[in-house]
């Protein structure tokens, strides 16, 4: 389908969530028109990018129509009728939820994740489900059963992972915003690679009910958008206490939009010396330093700090996350749902072939690492040791936050890398998340904001705050975006 898009709808596809809300309210176009335009664009570009694994056109149009009717009746919620995409890790009732895995290729979730429920109640229109690393295990979106996603900025590069499909979809304007999840950097690193604003809130801020688990104590849902303001709007929808999730925290959600413009004067910004050390691309460093001076201009004070144990974060993470995953993924046994191998000869054969065939290499590798780390004789040396290191890392942050209000640095040491360049060496792939992983271990909120271009490719500035400081992170990102235009650069597919 290559119907000519009208200039009006072409322009609509460039608008973010906040702007779309105003356009829809002004009746510049209807939600059905907007949704149709997005579906056409997805049709056109998704075969190349592979950002979506499922497109729910009919349902999207039905939701859009309902939103238009509500708007006509004056009963529409403020963001009703705005299209978006869900990472395929969130269970969506009646729609396949595959989590990037052959194991769940036939899994039609019988219930909605809390995040899905909340977005629906806000009247948002789901366009489809986005590609991702299998069970969110990866930093390049190359472990997906549905194939790799291409970076819209350069189709030979990865979009980052694990939320690579969401990032590519938003960057390529196949949706204005998408949900995502982050266990070690899976929102922030793709945000950096694709030139987006990505926020991983404090652990416990967004319900994990219905979000397929990778590592329970680290997983957290967030969003990928084209501006901090859009991120604020979506975080407002998604956040909040959920009695169905024991790790959900009962802390009131502030009005994120209300504080977006607050001045930064007197803000103390900590720069961890470990994040500006060997391994950081000098061009990336230059751009990050330039971005930091923008904050200085607005009255913030920069201060070097030390996160002494940050070099151990990847080590500790690759014990804890696989350990939790090894148990979380035991339920994929071919009994009650999902993939089952053909003609098992006995129970053990069924288990082993179902799991051997249903999981990809990276997932199997992490299950084995986790199984090993928990097995008799190794538990103390690996699992307990890693939990102790986790404490040290958290203590580093606690100490830092006595001196500074937020911590900033590069989200990733470099720009997006070529497809296939790191798949043979898991360790270099794991080191991708060197600046982001400690934030998950400490449970803190982190945000990546576009902060420059290096050789025509986007890079991200990471901002880390205290527990439940999402409003502050969004405020800082917004102020930065008011003063710079990095977030407005698009790959132009």
């Amino acid at each position, binding site marked *: 389908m290559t119907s000519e898009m009208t200039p009006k709808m072409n322009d609509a596809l460039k608008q973010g969530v906040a702007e779309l809300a105003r356009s829809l309210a002004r009746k510049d176009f209807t939600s059905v028109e907007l949704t149709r335009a997005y579906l056409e664009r997805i049709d056109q570009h998704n075969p190349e990018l592979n950002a979506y694994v499922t497109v729910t056109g009919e349902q999207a149009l039905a939701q859009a129509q309902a939103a238009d009717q509500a708007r006509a009746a004056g009963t529409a919620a403020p963001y009703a009728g705005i299209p978006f995409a869900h990472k395929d890790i969130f269970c969506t009732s009646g729609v396949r939820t595959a989590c990037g895995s052959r194991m769940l290729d036939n899994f039609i979730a019988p219930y909605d994740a809390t995040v899905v429920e909340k977005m629906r109640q806000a009247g948002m229109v789901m366009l489809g489900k986005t590609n991702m690393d299998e069970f969110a295990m990866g930093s390049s979106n190359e472990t997906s059963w549905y194939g790799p996603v291409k970076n819209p900025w350069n189709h030979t590069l990865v979009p980052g992972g694990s939320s690579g499909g969401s990032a590519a979809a938003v960057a390529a304007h196949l949706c204005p915003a998408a949900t995502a999840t982050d266990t070690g950097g899976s929102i922030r690193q793709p945000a950096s690679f694709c030139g987006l604003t990505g926020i991983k809130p404090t652990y416990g801020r967004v319900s994990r009910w219905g979000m397929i688990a990778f590592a329970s104590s680290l997983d957290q849902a967030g969003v990928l958008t084209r501006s901090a303001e859009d991120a604020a709007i979506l975080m407002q929808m998604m956040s909040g206490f959920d009695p169905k999730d024991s*790790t959900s925290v009962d802390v009131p959600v502030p009005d994120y939009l209300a504080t977006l413009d607050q001045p930064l004067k007197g803000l103390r910004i900590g720069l961890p010396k470990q994040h500006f050390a060997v391994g950081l691309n000098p061009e990336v460093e230059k751009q990050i330093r330039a971005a930091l001076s923008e904050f200085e201009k607005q009255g913030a004070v920069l201060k070097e700090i030390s996160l002494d144990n940050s070099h151990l974060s990847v080590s500790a993470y690759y014990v804890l996350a696989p350990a939790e995953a090894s148990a979380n993924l*035991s339920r994929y046994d071919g009994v009650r749902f999902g993939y089952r191998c053909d003609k098992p000869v006995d129970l053990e054969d069924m288990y082993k072939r179902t799991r051997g065939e249903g999981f990809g290499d990276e997932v199997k590798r992490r299950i084995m690492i986790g199984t090993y780390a928990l097995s008799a004789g190794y538990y103390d040396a690996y699992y307990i040791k890693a939990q102790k290191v986790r404490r040290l890392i958290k203590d580093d942050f606690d100490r830092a936050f006595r001196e500074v209000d937020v911590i900033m640095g590069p989200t990733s040491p470099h720009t997006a890398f070529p497809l296939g360049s790191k798949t043979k060496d898991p360790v270099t792939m794991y080191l991708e998340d060197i600046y982001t992983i400690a934030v998950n271990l400490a449970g803190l909120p982190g945000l990546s904001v576009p902060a420059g271009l290096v050789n025509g490719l986007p890079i991200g500035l990471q901002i880390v705050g205290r527990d439940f400081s999402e409003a502050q992170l969004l405020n800082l990102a917004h102020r930065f975006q008011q003063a710079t235009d990095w977030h407005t650069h698009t790959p132009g597919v």
Partner: protein
Amino acid sequence: MAWETVIGLEVHVQLATKSKLFSGSATTFGAEPNTQANVFDLALPGTLPVLNGEALRMAVKFGLAIGAHIGKKSVFDRKNYFYPDLPKGYQTSQLDHPIVGKGSLTITLDDGTSRTIGVTRAHLEEDAGKSLHELFPNDTGIDLNRAGTPLLEIVSEPELRSAKEAVAYLKKLHSLILYLGISDGDMSQGSMRCDANVSVRQQGDSKFGTRAEIKNINSFRFVEKAILIEAQRQIDILEDGGRIIQETRLYDPDRNETRSMRSKEVANDYRYFPEPDLLPVVIDDAFIAAVKTTLPELPDLKSQRFQSHYGLSDYDADVLSADRATADFFEVVANACGDAKLSANWVMGDLQSVLHKSELDIAHSPVSAHALAGLISRIKDNTISSKIAKTVFEAMINGEGSADTIIESKGLKQVTDSGAIEKLIDTIIAANPKQLEQYRSGQDKVFTFFVGQVMKESKGKANPAQVNDILLNKLKK
């Protein structure tokens, strides 16, 4: 050689909550397969557990009842293994930080002696589903209704020294959980299941022998038989110069033997680690105090009170207080009729044997506590004799009405008119000169002959005490 058996029991008690340990599914027994298993119980992707507060309170209640240390910060762990009736591939249990720590239980043996048995710990965990192996020729069917039902696993110290002690411990535990109302304790439905760790050693040895774990014993009787047969198996092996291997064995009641469950022995590396989907369970003194106020009077204290307040023997007091419903029944009878001793005798004797024969529990007794008290009152005020009372009781069982109605309608009222009794005795003495002669020549035993004759003539209604007195006087003359 004298052998000593060493036993430790692990008892799984299904807690009587309405909903499951971590989900809002019902726990009703006997529902159609898989109708009480929701998305969490089926371990669908993305589902999460939330702890049932009532299960926690029940566990604490049990802990308080055995004088145990209550874990102010307990932690749930994942115990990893694959089995089709374990949907998540791990069981959520408690390893290092159980909700209930060390406590004890005092058991009373048949010879009246008592022993205090240490309870190592008690922890909360999820039950598994059921595997049905016999229904299909090539498949096993899985029913997950039971998956996630809360269990309290109560672990004893290896301080039991005979099958009888093990049974006494189990009965005491059973009585206690019924008292506390934390489980229906129905062993036939699996509400209480027992694994026994059994080893033997030479009397006087301080070291334990190698133990075998006998799984899933589902009645008091089988516990005793399983332990006896397993201990004997071990003794036979040792006396033949063999060695015991540590393993899991299954008791087969049909063949009265235990046999190895080798299939479950392969590589049991459970890889326990703290359940990251749940947070530490922290309870404070106020929580514990609130649970404490819900504790009923427990069997040991009740027995003491029955002795001091009602003047019962310690045996009677123990028997009556072992079961809460029986104890309550007894108290109603005793308070209504004012004679605790007679009440105890009737409840433990005639009533118990009727209930036993008709397989009823005391809550469904055909004679209410007040009706029984009515009968005992008539014995006390000499309206009827104890012997006639049994006749009245039988009629009451048959639903013929209250004691008074029956006594009236059958004319069973005792004769206490001494003039009438005297007349009767005179007639009988006159009719039996030979026996009178014998008595007066020193054959005292003939006295009972006269009593029998009087009672027979009066159709049992003459007051026995009065008959005795008057007869004694008359015969002496």
